[in-house]
């Protein structure tokens, strides 16, 4: 090479969804800077929603127009079938989360004000609001879109940070229980930074091994380069730490319960759905594309991780008394189930396709149900804000049967009862795993989900079979947005549970050509 750098080519059309979101985010920042306070939220909301919708539309157009078979932006970003599918999913989920955020109830007036201080009082009085929430969220979503599409580890790292940093902040902005919220923020931030350091170090080692951070090149190097396996293994492991941390797989799950519990519920919803989807997309790409040739080595490792994750998630959830914390553990358990799908790679492309299809379907099903569940959580409140403690949910089935019914339905979906989306999600993944000889893992999986069923059922028992507490929580009349989210999620859970075929087809076409190489 002779030092001259030729100008890179960038397929703006392909990246349009990304650019829209990021662009909107920057506009949002400008709005914060220049628009008068009373106008801001009036501008932000449509801006955010429109940008997300627009991005979604673009992604769809992209998919219709024909999925590119070449990585874009000089091989930095791969806009392929799975990526587009995941983009679509994330955008819908983000849209839903925004609808939840809409009623300011959730966010602190003045984050800088010390809880219980005069300033806070004042902030409340003048109904101050942190409208930065919207641009922050957009940045996070942008990161989420970029993360699974990143075709080289550097972009992946940047995307990781772009996704995480805004979330760190958003976690700390809860209006009520501010101490918890701030604590969540600190924990998430420190641990997140810690883990991303691992990710970066892993990147460095792999770079050292392959001489490039491009996933495809790394994969090619796997065969050719010799003698530096230690470098490779440790590097891959470090990379794994960073990714597994984001999905909250054991033993990297410890942040999840605390952060999910402390954060404002809409943000929890976004993290539990969007981040998880994004992280899995990235995990898949890194392991299937970057380390594809290494699967005989990483499969046993992930095998162990999956088992540990399912067991830890299922078992610890049993004794939880806080609804959000319980959902956090449940999402850990589901992370375990999803990992089964990651492991279920086979020898033929068809097998891999079916595994990927199952995984994508599971992500959609789980994401929608999760958003719905958290949306319901935002609606059950008492004097101190949302009623988190399970004992407060007793007898909800009598006070507001409809809401309780919907929530029960979501729980059954989590438990994977037939005729709900959750069942087909699990089924698709398990089937792929069995087909590729991971039957023992599946057996552990079903045992874990039997255990998991217990705590979902326990909530149903509380809501329906036990009598309401005298000063039980009241169910607020949902804002139109929240109602829409709950309704949509419920609908999705039913439809995917009864007629999964269309979405399965979609996922299948998306997974058809697997990831571009």
């Amino acid at each position: 090479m002779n030092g001259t750098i030729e100008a890179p080519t960038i397929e703006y059309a392909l990246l349009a969804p990304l650019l829209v979101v990021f662009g909107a985010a920057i506009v949002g920042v400008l709005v914060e800077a220049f628009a008068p306070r009373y106008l801001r939220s009036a501008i932000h909301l449509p801006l955010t929603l429109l940008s997300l919708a627009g991005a979604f539309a673009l992604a769809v157009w992209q998919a219709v127009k024909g999925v590119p078979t070449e990585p874009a932006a000089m091989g930095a970003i791969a806009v392929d079938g799975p990526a587009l599918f995941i983009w679509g999913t994330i955008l819908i989920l983000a849209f839903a989360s925004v609808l939840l955020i809409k009623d300011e109830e959730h966010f602190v007036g003045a984050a800088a004000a010390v809880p219980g201080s005069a300033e806070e009082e004042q902030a409340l009085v003048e109904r101050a609001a942190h409208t930065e929430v919207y641009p922050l969220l957009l940045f996070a979503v942008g990161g989420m879109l970029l993360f699974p599409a990143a075709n080289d580890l550097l972009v992946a790292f940047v995307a990781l940070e772009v996704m995480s940093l805004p979330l760190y902040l958003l976690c700390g902005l809860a209006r009520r229980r501010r101490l918890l919220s701030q604590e969540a923020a600190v924990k998430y931030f420190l641990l997140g930074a810690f883990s991303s350091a691992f990710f970066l170090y892993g990147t460095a080692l792999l770079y050292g091994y392959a001489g490039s951070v491009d996933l495809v090149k790394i994969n090619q190097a796997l065969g050719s380069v010799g003698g530096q396996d230690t470098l490779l293994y440790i590097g891959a492991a470090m990379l794994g730490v960073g990714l597994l941390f984001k999905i909250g797989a054991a033993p990297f799950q410890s942040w999840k319960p605390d952060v999910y519990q402390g954060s404002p519920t809409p943000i929890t919803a976004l993290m539990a759905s969007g981040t998880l989807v994004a992280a899995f997309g990235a995990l898949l790409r890194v392991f299937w594309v970057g380390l594809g040739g290494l699967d005989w080595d990483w499969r046993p490792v992930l095998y162990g991780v999956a088992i540990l994750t399912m067991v830890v998630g299922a078992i610890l959830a049993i004794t939880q008394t806080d609804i959000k914390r319980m959902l956090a553990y449940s999402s850990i358990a589901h992370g375990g189930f999803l990992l089964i799908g990651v492991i279920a790679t086979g020898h033929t492309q068809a097998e891999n396709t079916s595994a990927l299809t199952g995984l994508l379907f599971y992500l959609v099903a789980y994401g929608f149900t999760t958003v719905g569940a958290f949306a319901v959580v935002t609606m059950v409140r008492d004097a101190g804000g949302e009623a988190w403690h399970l004992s407060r949910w007793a007898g909800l089935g009598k006070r507001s049967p409809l809401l309780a019914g919907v929530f029960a339905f979501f729980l059954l979906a989590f438990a994977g009862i037939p005729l709900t989306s959750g069942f087909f999600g699990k089924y698709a993944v398990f089937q792929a795993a069995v087909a590729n000889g991971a039957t023992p893992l599946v057996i552990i999986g079903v045992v874990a989900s039997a255990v998991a069923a217990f705590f979902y059922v326990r909530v149903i028992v509380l809501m329906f079979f036990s009598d309401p507490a005298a000063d039980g929580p009241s169910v607020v009349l949902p804002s139109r947005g929240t109602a829409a989210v709950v309704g949509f999620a419920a609908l999705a859970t039913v439809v995917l549970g009864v007629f999964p075929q269309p979405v399965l087809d979609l996922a299948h076409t998306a997974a058809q050509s697997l990831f571009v190489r």
Partner: protein
Amino acid sequence: MPWLSTLMGVSVLGALGVTLVRNDKLAKQFTLVVSLIVLALTVAMAVQFSPNGDKFQFAETYDWIPAFGVHYGVAVDGIALVLILLSVILVPIVVLASWHDAEAGKRSVRTYFSLLLVLEAMMIGVFAATDVFLFYVFFEAMLIPMYFMIGSYGGAQRSYAAVKFLLYSLFGGLLMLVAVIALYSIAGKGTFMFTDLVGTIQDVTTQKWLFLGFFIAFAIKAPLWPFHTWLPDAAAQAPAGAAVLLVGVLDKVGTYGMLRFCLELFPDAAKFFTPLVITLSVIGIVYGAIVAIGQTDMKRLIAYTSVSHFGFIAMGVFAMTTTAGAGATLYMVNHGFSTGALFLIAGFLIYRRGSQYIADYGGVQKVAPILAGTFLVAGLSSLSLPGLSTFVSEFMVLTGTFQRYVVPSVIATVGVILAAIYILWMYQRTMNGPTAESVKSLPDLNAREKWVVAPLVALLLVFGFYPKPLLDVIHPAVQDTLSSVSVTDPQPAVPVAQEGQ
């Protein structure tokens, strides 16, 4: 005409309709009407069933989830038909019987009855499913309405019982799920249609594993010893009506599954495990009866008698002789009627006095002779007195089993003696002797309750003396099943040329 879909459709629509009706009384009547319509339709279907026609009739098959090779496939053979008949006959009776059950807990009456109809649809579906996956879906989904019926409308311990019931069955179901998936991918047919899957699994070891996956689920459902302990709790806590459907129909899915899936899909494994299953059944027969004798709670007692009876059924299924198989199938039907009657009449009694404990009764016969009389008839059917249909089935099961397994069937026959003890002793303690103070003012059966009991008793008597109509339908199906397992009945030592024997 798509009979089976119509049946399910009517009940589902009925369920929706009930939720829309505003007034409770109307809702009840509506439910009753719907269930009667379903009954009528089913009978209309049954008369068109030709016993010696194709194995599966009234078949409908549509793709449901091509990606998984899953179909919406329903059809009936003789076995399924009689079980569906059982279900649709029991539902209206249960509706009539639980007229006031739902009100006890100050909970939504409409929900109760709409759950009832949903359950009916699922009961029809689970027996009619010709697609293994569809069967599994119904198998699991059925749990939910029953779970709510027990949990919301049951007795003091209801939530414990409901959770235990759900988790126990769910666990079995999940194991079965693994087997279902494995069956699909090992068969490699790309379809879940039962008929296509029969005989695809050749390797015996594989068969054994898959068999276990299915069997454990069914053994929990049935329930077979030692997987039975959820039943007494569930049955004792459930409202009488729900208990009838639980023990009368839902549990039959277990034994039905053994006959339909365990035998036909995994014949070699079935033969391999027969000794084990027969042992469990025999233990269950004797053990269940002995434990029943020791019960102090009426509903628990009845539940344990069912454990004993399910032992008979499972034994009949795995004896693999035509007589035993047909007997077992008939047993499933009769047991539904007889235990149904027992539970309902016990329910009437409990509803009046407000206690499930045998000790709280005594001398009821004097104040409520009709109640006592019908209770006795139901009891006698439970101890399978000749002249009542249960005798026919039990006799067939034992005779058929004896042809192949002498010792087990002899031990099982001890159950006949024990049955006399638990039934008659309970009857004596509740109905005979000096009338207890607490029941002095007990009213006798009212018109509605008589209408509940009459059909059951009638069925028990009619099929007790003339089981032919049922057996003519059952026999070909059972023979077909056994031939696909490729077993033949043992030959007599002294062959006697007998016309029509």
